[in-house]
């Protein structure tokens, strides 16, 4: 039972990891790639780690540390992905030509239009 659950979780995680890596290779611009990367980490790494916890038990030397790694990944990776996406945007990395909306750009333009003209 436990073994079957481990195999299922590992297979699920590996499938997601592979699809995320293919996405990172094939996606057209850096923002889509960042999205694929964070999906790889959340949906690909967590099932695999949980599979190891299921196999070894949560209170063994392996399971305990794997749980710590799981929590760390859950906290740290969204933050890192967000910082990276923001930095790429501020750095002026161009979007894919098929992108339909650029919300921060619209927001700054609207703010600029609404502002009163400043004295020279």
């Amino acid at each position, binding site marked *: 039972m436990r073994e079957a659950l481990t195999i299922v979780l590992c297979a699920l995680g*590996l499938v997601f990891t592979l699809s995320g890596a293919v996405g990172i290779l094939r996606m057209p611009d850096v923002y889509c790639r960042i999205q694929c*990367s964070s999906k790889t980490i959340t949906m690909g790494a967590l099932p695999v780690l949980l599979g190891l916890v299921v196999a070894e038990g949560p209170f063994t030397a392996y399971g305990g540390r794997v749980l710590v*790694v799981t929590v760390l990944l859950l906290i740290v990776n969204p933050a890192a992905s967000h910082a990276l996406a923001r930095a790429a945007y501020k750095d002026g990395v161009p979007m894919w030509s098929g992108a339909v909306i650029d919300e921060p750009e619209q927001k700054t333009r609207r703010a600029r239009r609404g502002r009163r003209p400043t004295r020279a």
Partner: protein
Amino acid sequence: MHELYIVVAIAELAVGGLLLVRLAVGPTTSDRVVALNTLSTQATLSLLFFAAFADRTAYLDVALWLASFSYLGTLVWARLLERDLL
């Protein structure tokens, strides 16, 4: 069960090999940092499974350190890009 561990470890490394392509060709620095970030996660997973396969708890600490501090590299790169310091 131990065969499963080494299979998963090797599979994670193989996916890391795919990411190396993006690391090599990525047109902008941000692309390379994305690939590097994902690659470090793959390395962590691979190390954890190799530790379980080889039955050495010492390797677990390496994976724990990698998981704790690999994101610092990403954050430093993000800072450099954001402030235009490159």
